[in-house]
């Protein structure tokens, strides 16, 4: 299960719905990111979710390739201290 970092305000802007700037109020960093990352973060804002649930919510096929891409994105978001995996899983 993945969830937003507790206390993350999820503040972002876009001017073309493709490239986004995202402010992390916990680290003070600003990240250049894309629509897929924002979509995942918005889903996790609603509730914690497992990777397969995220695939489904994103309307992606449950294939090894899709899962690998999502895992890579989740790892990137974790590296930016935007999300964390919950101890329950």
């Amino acid at each position, binding site marked *: 299960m993945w969830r937003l970092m507790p206390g993350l305000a999820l*503040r972002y802007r876009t*001017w*073309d719905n493709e*490239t986004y*700037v995202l*402010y992390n109020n916990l680290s003070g960093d*600003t990240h250049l990111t894309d629509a897929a990352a924002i979509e995942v973060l918005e889903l996790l804002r609603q509730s914690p979710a497992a990777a397969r649930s995220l695939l489904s919510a994103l309307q992606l096929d449950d294939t090894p390739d899709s899962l690998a891409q999502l895992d890579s994105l989740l790892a990137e978001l974790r590296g930016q201290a935007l999300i964390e995996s919950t101890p329950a899983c």
Partner: protein
Amino acid sequence: MLTVAHLTRAELGARLARDGIVLQTGGFLVHLHSSVPALADGIALMYRDYPLHPPGAFAHFRLTLHRPASLRRWYRPQVHMRFDGEALFKPLPLAHAFPMLEWGLNWCVANRAHRYLMIHAAVLERGGRAVILPAPPGSGKSTLCAALAYRGWRLLSDELTLIRPEDGLIEPVPRPVSLKNASIDVMRSYLADSDHAVFTVPVDTTLKGLVAHLRAPADAVARSSESARPAWIVFPRYQAGAPSTLEALPPAHTHMDLAKNAFNYSLLGARGFDMLADMVGNARGYRYTYSKLDEAIAVFDQLAAQP
């Protein structure tokens, strides 16, 4: 309002040494106290058009530049600078007194004026709209800024872009333009036909190489209470022999690059993010490479003609 020009050089030197002077640059009042003649010379030459307030008036910053009472008063004489009584930089050779004052004034604003979002960028205005030129040293920012300031654009600042939180407008703080090394002769030659372009004698500093200052145009000083709306954000780069090339920069990239040039973006937190994003959303971003000032002026004239 009394200005520096109303005082003779002797009166200015005497006031500086006795009670100090309170000089207004943009929205800032600075109390300066010094008995260093080279500093009074620099102020008389570069700050001629700036208002002076009574010595006891409120000042945002208090700077003292003095010669030490030690042997260094005579042997390779130095100048020390104090900000609110505390040493600000390492002592420098006496001949560096005026550049030291300029660096000190920049330091005061950049480290104290956190009510603004502050970007390390030159900024100029035309028709109420401002062009912001953020760039690291060596990019030709100040050279371009100096040329524009004497070719139809109003100088708001060559170092400090101050964005007001309440309305997103840029507050001017026009001061002398700092020129370094080859750009000094470039600008002397470029502005040779202007009677109003006045330069200080270049000083050879170990820190930044050869440094000279160009007086801010009188009109820019007189209109320093007129704020401007950010309209263009242009990242300039001088490259010898390069053709004049203006490339649009997507807003998100403009935001990221601008944040890297801000003094207090991180300090302001979410407010800084929102202010920067609001500004980027209402301005056009570009990268600009140039080698010839006349070509650059033509490009900026085209920007000014945009609706």
